[in-house]
């Protein structure tokens, strides 16, 4: 199963991913439309000690947000592994229990509509909009095993070059 991975060293904090996310989740599907509709991005880029850190839902194996959801709106899809409170049998009521539960702080309140919003991996899009828009390669959409393998290869390479 493909996941969104972050290579922190490559992130320059350009915020293109947040715009692409907002555009994808707007009804117009473009950036200007998203700004007019005031669509909140579901990915954030935080500044920590002068360093940019992209942050979004990890679609956990045992998601605490799903456990905390008292309406049953927040579900983890058995096939895709996507955790979302949209397009399920029950609907979100904005009780913010999931916000209280998420250890990553990856769920935001949409106070206007009174519902919680979070990354839905663009709901079946082949490559999530944030990853597609990232031109530094800081965001990757790959299989977990591939990611680990590449990281191992990279570390090994760095070690051999250093010696």
């Amino acid at each position, binding site marked *: 199963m493909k996941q969104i991975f972050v290579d922190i060293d490559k992130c320059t904090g350009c915020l293109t991913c947040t715009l692409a996310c907002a555009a994808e989740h707007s009804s117009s599907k473009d950036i200007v439309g998203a700004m007019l509709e005031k669509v909140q991005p579901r990915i954030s880029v935080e500044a920590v000690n002068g360093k940019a850190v992209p942050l979004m839902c990890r679609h956990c194996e045992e998601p605490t947000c799903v*456990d905390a959801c008292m309406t049953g709106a927040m579900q983890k899809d058995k096939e895709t592994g996507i955790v979302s409170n949209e397009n399920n*049998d029950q609907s979100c009521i904005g009780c*913010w229990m999931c916000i209280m539960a998420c*250890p*990553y702080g990856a769920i935001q309140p949409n106070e206007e509509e009174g519902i919680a919003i979070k990354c839905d991996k663009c709901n079946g899009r082949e490559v999530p909009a944030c990853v597609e828009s990232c031109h530094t390669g800081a965001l990757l959409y790959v299989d977990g095993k591939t990611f680990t393998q590449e990281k191992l290869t990279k570390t090994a390479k760095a070690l051999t070059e250093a010696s």
Partner: protein
Amino acid sequence: MQYVIIGNSAAGTQAAETIRKYDSAGNIVIISDEPHAAYSRCLLPDYLAGERSEKTILFKSANFYGRNNVATMFGKKAVDIDSENQKVYLGDGHTVSYDKLLIATGSSAFVPPIKGIDESGIFNLRNLDDAVGIKEAAKKARRVVVVGGGFVGLEAAYSLYSLGLEVTVVERLSQIVPGQFDVKAAAILRNDMQAEGIRIITGDGIKEIAGPSLWNRLFNKTGKGVLLDSGERLKCELVVVATGTRANVGLTDKTGIKVNRGIEINEYMETNVPNIYAAGDVAETVDVVSGELGLSPIWPNAIVQGRMAGLNMVGQTRKYSKMIGMQNSVEFRNVPAIAIGLTRTPDDCEEMVIHRPHLNYYRKLILKDDILKGMIFVGDIRRAGVYAALIKKKVPVTKFKQQLLKESFGYSSIIS
């Protein structure tokens, strides 16, 4: 293998789902004294306000019982357990045998001994039937008195207010939501509700609830009088009593199961009697903040306990990792608020506070030796879960202590 689950709410249904995941052949039976499919009690105020229907308060999909091949015995009350012969007795005389039994009977509304409190026109808000009753009675009522200024009382107050009733809330203690928030947070929430037009009286108890006088009854009037300790008399047609809950432990009387305020269980969700487990509001677990055994009647913990009970009943031995006993999130009107862990600062703890009541904004963190023990966020509740994780995992915050109260503080502040 016959798995019997008493209770059809968060813990019970979660256990059933978990058992079925690992055991496709065993029989699973859910017994519930309520005749309804599993619904979310937390949504009853929304049902009362007319924002949700009997269908949209269900938290499992419609085919939940069928899909998981769970037999249901709804509308039947389990009255006794014979732990020796592994049998559950039902109120209608039937018995159900079990190999593994889960007690997930939850809790009931506690009704204080007040004169006149058992008359008609006085309701709790614990079950769907209560909510249906209040909704019906509200049609003929103009004024309502809500006894108890906790979560349920205030949510009921707000729902009834939105139906057009004149609402007065009476809380015996000196602040509203005394169990979940401190004085400062309560004051902000109180102002917000009063601004809407709900009257809130604190520091006053109920002396007596008087029915309609003979004269009024002759004219078919249903008016009541709620007499307060201070002498004030509130007139109303409807009374909602929301003065806390008690764990439903009555069933365990003859079983030898160890009961304190709830059923004592170990970290495998087992009671002291073989093959009997407990989970949810009825169970006592160790709180990660206090380290003490106690009830933790909140939704997320019931779900996790239900899952852990299911896993252990089916032989997938797994330890329940201690949870935070108290975590609450509310938004009565406009101001969201979250409290996790300790809310009142003990003498040996330090607190970090931002208090801007005019902006409905309040943040308080309670720390002991640089370990977070509790927090309150009012007005801006974003990223509250990050703090909950710090509390649960007892992470020393020394490195990022100065950033803790900043709105920019988040998960990335911890990892870098």
